[in-house]
C-alpha cells in the first residue's frame, strides 16, 4: 500500500535528508519515530504530497506521488489522505460543523449524517455550533481528528499528536486515533518523537 525507495530531500541545498525505505501492507498501522531534526515533518509532508522529493520514489495506493502535478496531488490528497497536525488548525470564522462541511465541500461531498456520527463518536457533538476558538485544547484535538477523517480517507497521517500530552492523555489520544481509523476503515501512520507510543504499534520504524 505504501512503498518508498531511496527518498531524498533537501531544503535550499542546506539541509539534506535521506530516508530509509518503507514498505507497508494494507491493514497495517505504522509508527515512524525519530528525534528532532531527522526530518519527521518533512517525511510526513512528502507522504501527504505537500512536498515533492528530489529523488527516489513514493508509491501510495499504487500511485507514484513524484509524478503527479500539484493539482493532481491536491485531488489525490482530498480523496485518500486525512491529516492530523501537531497543533490543530481550523478556519476560525466557521463553527465546528461548518469546518467539517467545508472539508466535505472541498472533496465534493455533502453528508451531514456522517458529520453527526463522527462528532458523536468523538464525544463532541454538543460543540457542533461552537466557533473553534471557544474549544478547549482536548476538544480542538478531537475536532482536528474529525477533520482528518470526515472525507473517509484510506490513510490518516498524524504528526506528533501526543507530544504535549501527559501519559494519561497520550494513551487516550492514541487509542482514540486507532479506534477512529478502525471504525472508519482507514490506515494510520503516526510520526512522532514520543517513544511512549511504541507499545501501541506492532510495526514501527526509526529514522
Amino acid at each position, binding site marked *: 500500500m505504501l512503498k518508498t525507495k531511496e527518498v531524498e530531500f533537501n531544503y535550499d541545498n542546506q539541509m539534506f535528508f535521506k530516508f530509509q525505505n518503507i514498505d507497508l501492507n494494507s491493514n497495517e498501522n505504522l509508527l515512524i519515530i525519530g528525534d528532532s531534526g531527522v526530518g519527521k*515533518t*518533512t517525511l510526513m*509532508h512528502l507522504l*501527504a504530497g*505537500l*512536498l515533492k522529493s528530489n529523488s527516489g520514489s513514493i508509491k501510495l495506493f499504487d500511485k507514484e506521488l513524484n509524478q503527479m502535478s*500539484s*493539482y493532481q496531488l*491536491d*485531488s489525490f*490528497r*482530498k*480523496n485518500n489522505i486525512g*491529516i492530523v*497536525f*501537531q*497543533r490543530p*488548525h*481550523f*478556519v*476560525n*470564522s*466557521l463553527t465546528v460543523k*461548518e469546518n467539517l*462541511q*467545508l*472539508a*466535505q*465541500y*472541498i*472533496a465534493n461531498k455533502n453528508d451531514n449524517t456522517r458529520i453527526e456520527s463522527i462528532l458523536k463518536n468523538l464525544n463532541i457533538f454538543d460543540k457542533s455550533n461552537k466557533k473553534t476558538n471557544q474549544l478547549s485544547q482536548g476538544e480542538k484535538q478531537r475536532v482536528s481528528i474529525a*477533520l482528518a477523517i470526515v*472525507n473517509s480517507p484510506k490513510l490518516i497521517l498524524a504528526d506528533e499528536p501526543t507530544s504535549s500530552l501527559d501519559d494519561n492523555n497520550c494513551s487516550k489520544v492514541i487509542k482514540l486515533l486507532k479506534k477512529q481509523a478502525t471504525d472508519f476503515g482507514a490506515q494510520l501512520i503516526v510520526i512522532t518523537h514520543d517513544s511512549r507510543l511504541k507499545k501501541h504499534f506492532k510495526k514501527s520504524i526509526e529514522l
Partner: protein
Amino acid sequence: MNIFKLSIKNIFNKPLSSSISLALLVLGVGIISLLLQLNTLIKDQMDNNLRGIDMVVGAKGSPLQLILSSVYHIDSPTGNISLAEAETISNNRMVGSSIKILYGDNYKGFRIVGAERKFVELYKGVIKEGKDWDNPYEVLVGSKVYEKLKINLGDELISSHGLRETGQSHDEGTFKVVGLLKPSNSVIDQLIITSPQSVWDIHETHDHDEHEHEHEHEHEHEHEHDNREITAMLIKFKSPMNIIQFPRQINENTNLQAAVPSYEISRLFKLFGFGIETLSYLAYLIIIVSGFSLFINLFNSMRERKYEMALIRTLGASRFQLSTMIIFESLVLTISGFILGLLFSRFGVMFVSSLMEESINYNLNSLKILNEEYWLLGLSVLIGVVSSLIPAIQVYKMNISKILADA
C-alpha cells in the same frame, strides 16, 4: 458550505476592518451617484419644461434671468415689455407660434400667470375638474398648488402683488377657481393660470403710480394708444435656422431682449459642471483610498490566516480555489459597497428633492439606474479585483509545507 459562503463568513468574522473599507466605498460611490442623479434629473426637468421653446422675448436684462423667470418660473422677471412691440415680433414671418405671458401677482407664493390658452396646451395641461376660464378673474390651478394649499373648485383666491408672498394685497384681486389641472410633470403644476385680461384689469387702476419693479417703465412712449404690457413672449420658429439670426436682430434693433433657452441652459450647466467635476474627483479619490484599505485588510488577514489557508489546502482545495476565495471576499465587499452607495444616493436625491420642492416648487423624482452608474459598478468590481490581486497571488504561491512546519 462552499467557497462563496466561506468568503462571506470571513468578512463577518472581521466586522471592523471590513466595514471601514465598505464605508469608504459607499461614500465614494454614493457621492458620484448622487451627483450624476441630480445632474441628470435637473437636466431632464429643464429639458422637459423647454417644450420646444426656441426663443423668449422680454425686457432687457440678464438673458439667463429672462429664461429662468419665463420658462422655468423660478426667478424674477427682467421687467415688462409693451404688448404692441411684442405683437410686431409675433407677426414676423420667421415666427411659427408665440405665447404671451404676464406676471403680476401671487397667491401664497405661487405665481399667477396671465397667459393665452395656448400656454396650457404647450404643457399638455388637462383639466381634471371644472372648466377652462371664460371671464376675467377666473383661474385654472396647477396640481401642486391645489394639493399644497388645499384649494377646491369655486374657492376665491385673494392675490398679493409681486411674485413673493410679502407683496401688498389687492383689494380687487379676487380670483375664482374654475378649473383644477391634472398633474403634468411640468411647470404648470406649480402655477395659477388666468387670462391676460385679468392681470391687466387688476393693474390698470394703480399701475402707473407704482414703481415696484426696477426695470419697469423703461419703454418709450411710442404706443400711447395702447399701454398694455406683457412680461415675456415664448416663441417657436418656423425653421430652426432662424435661431441664429433672429435673436440677434431683436437684440440689436429693438429695446427688447431675445434669449435662446437651450443656449442659456447649457451655459448654466457649464457653470454647474465645474463644481460637479471637482466633487467627482474627490469622490473618485475616496474610492481609490477604499481600494487601498481593502488591499491592506486582505493582506493582513492573509498573514493572520495563513495556517487556515494551509489547512484548507491540505484538505485538498486547489490553489485556484483558495485564490478565488480571496477575490470573492473582496468582490462581496465592493459590490455591497456599490449597492449601499446607490441606496445612499437615492436617499440623497429624495432629500434634495424635498428641499427643492420647498424653495422653488420643483420636484425631482426618478430613481432609475443611469448608464454612468453601470460604469460605477464596473469600477467597484475593478477595485475589488485589483485590491485582492496581490493577496490572491500570494495565496496561490503559498508554500503550505513551510507554513505547517513552522507552526
